[in-house]
């Protein structure tokens, strides 16, 4: 279309002078510390893990730990840890050369982590001699685990929100979901090491559900703080 080609060749318009409001702010311009995503990520991970470890110490480690298959204990723990690290990294660290974090991947990671870890809990749940099962009752009475998991999620979500405060013009809901899913996975990891309830419904729907709930809550609340205004 030649008309579009002609339009694309037009020189750009002359912009207006800088507004008085901005000139006033420029008059008081001071150096600012720019965002350092990797440093922030390292701090976020370190503080969250220390906080999670503190919570486990406070809540006590599950009593059936020594009876559980080591392979399951470690691999499920690693899955929870991965569910924490991947969405948190994607939600806070941009790809090289970019200012904005990878919100699309963070969003995908939050959905995948929620589904995968709920599924993992439902399917793989070996019990030790001192593990106990509750069935549907365990789901109904799972509010204690839900509360503990969400309490754990608060720290990574709040830290991530502080680091991303007023930085995101787009994709802030997906970034928030990534932060929430990451925090929820850390909550799941804490519950994995604390809660001795062994049935799949409890582990899948309550422990895994922490991720989905944290992601949804974060997606609803965090963008108010992280969007550029």
């Amino acid at each position: 279309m030649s008309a579009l080609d002609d339009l694309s060749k037009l020189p750009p318009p002359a912009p207006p002078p800088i507004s008085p409001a901005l000139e006033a702010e420029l008059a008081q311009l001071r150096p600012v510390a720019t965002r350092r995503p990797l440093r922030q990520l390292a701090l976020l991970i370190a503080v969250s893990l220390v906080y999670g470890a503190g919570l486990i110490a406070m809540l006590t480690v599950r009593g059936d730990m020594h009876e559980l298959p080591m392979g399951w204990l470690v691999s499920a723990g690693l899955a929870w840890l991965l569910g924490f690290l991947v969405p948190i990294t994607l939600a806070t660290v941009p790809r090289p050369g970019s200012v904005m974090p990878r919100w699309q991947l963070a969003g995908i990671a939050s959905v995948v982590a929620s589904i995968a870890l709920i599924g993992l809990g439902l399917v793989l749940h070996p019990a030790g001699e001192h593990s106990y099962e509750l069935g549907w009752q365990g789901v109904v009475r799972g509010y204690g685990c839900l509360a503990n998991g969400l309490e754990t999620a608060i720290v990574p979500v709040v830290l991530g929100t502080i680091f991303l405060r007023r930085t995101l013009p787009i994709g802030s809901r997906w970034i928030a979901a990534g932060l929430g899913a990451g925090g929820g996975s850390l909550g799941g990891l804490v519950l994995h090491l604390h809660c001795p309830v062994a049935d799949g419904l409890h582990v899948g729907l309550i422990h895994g559900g922490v991720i989905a709930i944290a992601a949804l809550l974060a997606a609803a609340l965090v963008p108010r703080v992280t969007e550029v205004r």
Partner: protein
Amino acid sequence: MAEARDLMQRYCDGDAGAFRELYALVAPKLLGYLVKMTRERALADDLLQQTFLKVHRARAAYVRGADPLPWIYSIAHRTFIDETRKHRRAVVRVGEVEELPEVPAGLTGESEDRRDEVRGDPEMMRAALDALAELPAQQREAVVLTKLDGKSVAEAAEIAGTTVGAMKVRAHRGYEALRRLLGKSEARPAGGGS
């Protein structure tokens, strides 16, 4: 875009002159984008100022070494979306000469000193701008960014906050719709208006 990076870094270090240079470098392109999106020069000017005010207040979010342009464009995109949602302003149609607003030259992107240069058919360009205004905002943005501003599909997707695939679809549909609209206007007798 090493220049924009360098200017942004100096600006974050407290150099107001670097901000002015960055403004001179980026504002014309950004204004061109906003004018084509809003079809209203005064509103585009206002959105441009809002965008730079937001950039200024969010400058600590800049990551050193990164290209600031997609981020600044995204802020402009967000500002435009927020403004249209807030006010649901009617699109100002400028297809007819008597409806031209106060700065008509700005609508086609021509700066004052180059207004008299002959380039392209003015009627066709006006028809193209009118056709552009007929498109849904997402398709209009896709066409403006990829066809008029020369951004890659990936860059346009990053600015608009969508996927590369969705941006391709929007650009394709927008381009096809423009082709249909311009085909209609080309079929009309000369001086037929919008």
